[in-house]
């Protein structure tokens, strides 16, 4: 995994733990809605948290095709490359 990819996975993990402290181990193949149980408002809150942890901007249009955490991480990879921590 690249450094950027590690940073993205860490940010997702930390943001999700903050949103759902009871979540325990995180499966990145889990679906945001049906498995993790996030509704659309919670997904938006999660994305805002990740944005600030990585200091990047994530257009909400990017989320249209995202179903799992790994897919979310994949969408963020090109955005986060080269940005400061």
């Amino acid at each position, binding site marked *: 995994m690249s450094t950027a990819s590690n940073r993205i996975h860490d940010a997702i993990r930390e943001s999700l733990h903050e949103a759902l402290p009871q979540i325990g181990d995180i499966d990145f193949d889990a679906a945001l809605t049906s498995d993790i149980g996030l509704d659309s408002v919670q997904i*938006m809150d999660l994305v*805002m948290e990740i944005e600030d942890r990585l200091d990047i901007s994530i257009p909400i249009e990017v989320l249209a095709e995202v179903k799992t955490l790994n897919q979310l991480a994949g969408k963020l990879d090109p955005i986060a490359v080269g940005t400061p921590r």
Partner: protein
Amino acid sequence: MSLFDKFSGLSQARAELGHHGIAPVATPIDDIISASEGIIGGRRVVLAGTNNYLGLTLDPDVIDSARTALEHLGTGTTGSRMANGSYHAHQALEQELADAWGWASAMVFSTGYQANLGSISALAGADDYLLLDSDSHASIYDGAKMSAAQTLVFKHNDPENLDRRLTRLGDDASRALIVVEGLYSMLGDQPPLAEFIEVKRKHKAWLLLDEAHSFGVFGQRGLGLAEQHQAIDGIDFVVGTFSKSLGGIGGFCVSPHPQLELLRLAARPYIFTASPSPAVIAGTRTALAKVLDGQHLRDALWRNIHQLYSALNDMGYRLGSATPGPVAAIILPDRQTALAHWQGLLEAGIYTNLMLPPATPKGLNLLRISLSAAHSEEQIGRIVRAFEGLSLAA
């Protein structure tokens, strides 16, 4: 497999809510007695959930204007203003709206929803950015979805969070349209408008203020929160609705920028729909004059607001906003308690709104009350006594 399979969750949620008598969603209102009273389930109730802030829906002068237009101009315009003709009264209302703000241009839309959809989708194009407050109304999110711009969301009522997002855009921030609301209708809270304007100016961005729930309520002439804060010159676009304080249906966008006129050629929700009926336009023109000259209505509304907020605070209820306003949102611990409160109030003769996730911010279960200038002191007292009855029963 069916096209309807995807609605199974919604169907189940509706069935669960419908098990307990009168439905809390799309509640049938059998009849209207006055701006503040109606018949639900065969019983007379106080209407405390209809957004009728100034009580103008049954104003005799508004009705007379609408009736005259109905008789002279007919039931509808039967088409789009761009394709099928633009009535004089529609243009006159736009001039009156522009004059109210002292601005260059105003456009009338067929609904408030379409006013946001049309303004936002047309103003922000492919190379532009939309910066939305996370608690924005669905019409704002849908306008963003219809726009070709990239949409970024900032934390609710957090100018510093907006500042960070605009900073990341660098020079592109000058092509960013920030959208905030004058009053958020779920929690009844207001934005820190002066701080948002400061951030907008720092980045040379643009600011659209949706005054749907604040128009008529705030400011000496009822223009909304920007007037209340003497901040009108910091706003680029105000979007509003005719369906709350003005008591009709329709919406508008008004701006100091004369180029707003170009949206008539670009905003699809303006172009490809029928314009409001003549009766609606005539009624709205009379209602607008009453709002601008309606300090006595605002005085009555604010008396009711302070009376109810004070009583709910005394009873220890947790409210969505510490600052009193025309919406009082009571935060309840769970779905069942919220539903029980809604039903208990209805049984006591008070109609309110039940608001549940995911339609609410932060997964909150809310009981929402909208106050009106038309509520009498006795009716506010009935609302308070109904809550006291629930507290005793708990």
